[in-house]
């Protein structure tokens, strides 16, 4: 195992272990998403959703729940001196970026493992669209994790930590949400899933992941200098 890979695995394992032991993000994210579904139930006054409404409710909820986790992603590094340790370690700094993106993807997948089935139980009449939805979820999570990690690592060193993440991340996530809802809408339509422009939207998601993955990888070095 190369040193970078070992460092990547160590940071990822550290993050997941810390989250498993403290449970400071995931339960809050899951609870938040379920409550948001209830609010949408009354806000829209609908007991079942399909098509564009279903896609919109699902993605708005997942995005806002993700913001909660992204806010806290680097708090431990900042408060317990993790940033200094990474700077001291003889490893490439981008490893921290990669490991944090991976950890965030795991958090988001865990969140969706709870939130999407509950969403289906609450609102969907048939769950046939959930199978292909996994591909949309995976690609969107990657993009959200890439931009989220980048913004979170900057916000944590600012005076307005909890403010900056939603402020900057939401506009950045607009193209991601356009593509994710575009792909989800036909999957959840009333007469069973259809695949209208599904591949095109997945391509857009992949492109977003690629661009912001590369941007994050390229600029992350500059965020750790001090």
């Amino acid at each position: 195992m190369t040193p970078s890979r070992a460092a990547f695995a160590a940071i990822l394992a550290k993050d997941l272990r810390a989250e498993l032991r403290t449970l400071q993000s995931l339960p809050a994210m899951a609870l938040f998403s379920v409550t948001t579904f209830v609010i949408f139930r009354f806000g829209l006054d609908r007991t079942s959703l399909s098509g564009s409404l279903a896609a919109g409710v699902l993605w708005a909820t997942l995005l806002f729940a993700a913001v909660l986790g992204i806010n806290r992603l680097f708090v431990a590094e900042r408060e317990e001196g993790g940033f200094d340790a990474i700077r001291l370690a003889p490893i490439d700094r981008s490893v921290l970026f990669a490991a944090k993106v991976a950890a965030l993807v795991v958090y988001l997948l865990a969140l969706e493992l709870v939130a999407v089935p509950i969403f289906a139980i609450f609102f969907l009449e048939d769950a046939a669209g959930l199978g292909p939805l996994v591909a949309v979820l995976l690609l969107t999570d990657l993009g959200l994790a890439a931009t989220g990690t980048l913004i979170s690592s900057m916000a944590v060193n600012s005076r307005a930590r909890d403010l900056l993440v939603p402020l900057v991340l939401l506009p950045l996530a607009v193209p991601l949400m356009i593509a994710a809802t575009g792909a989800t809408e036909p999957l959840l339509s009333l007469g069973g899933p259809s695949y209208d422009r599904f591949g095109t939207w997945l391509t857009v998601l992949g492109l977003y992941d690629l661009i912001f993955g590369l941007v994050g990888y390229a600029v992350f070095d500059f965020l750790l200098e001090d």
Partner: protein
Amino acid sequence: MYGKGLKPLSIATVAMLALSLSLVFFYAPLDGDQGFIQKIFYLHVPLAMTALVGFIVGGIFAIAHLRTNDRKWDAYSYVAIHISVIFGVAVLITGAIWAKASWGHWWVWNEPTLVSFLIVFLLYATYYPFRYAIEDRDRQARYASVFAVTAGAFVPLNFMAVRMAQSLVHPRVFATSNGGLPGSMMLTFLCSLAAVALLWTTLVKFELTAKSASGQVKRLRRALDAPATGGNSRIAPEVS
């Protein structure tokens, strides 16, 4: 030192603006479909193009800052984005006026270019609170550059995504600039574009000159041990 060449540049800008405005009002033919209101096109579109290019230029300056660690480039990047955001406000206002006049609504969601521009504008509007939240000057400059690079990569991607979100049954409401524009209109448009681009350059140069002058005054005061007067901006970078 930034003031060098500011005067001829300003004169060229004023001359070009005067030329393009006279072309707009006395030379370009009235649009057969929209009539007089179509003339806002010669202001709206060049402003939008200049603002978008300005955002990208801000990102390129930010790359230069990250590569060289020279604070000058951070100031360039800040001023480029700053002026482009101001142009962006003008773009949204002229766009709304045009939309009201030709389609009857202040805002039209199925005009993808305008919607994309709004999203880009919203992202760049967060540049100020973002800078303001970071206290350490060096870190502020570095983070702002990272923001500018990320947002620069975001601009084309966003335009693509919004364009694709238009359902295919909806045709584009009006053709783009080269969509059958007659020669006289094209000439007027190019003149306006040059005038607005010159205006952007002049404003950027002026802002840099002003910042550099106030930075020099501050340094001289410090050398004389005199108390500084005036507010000290917490977001604008200092220029030497």
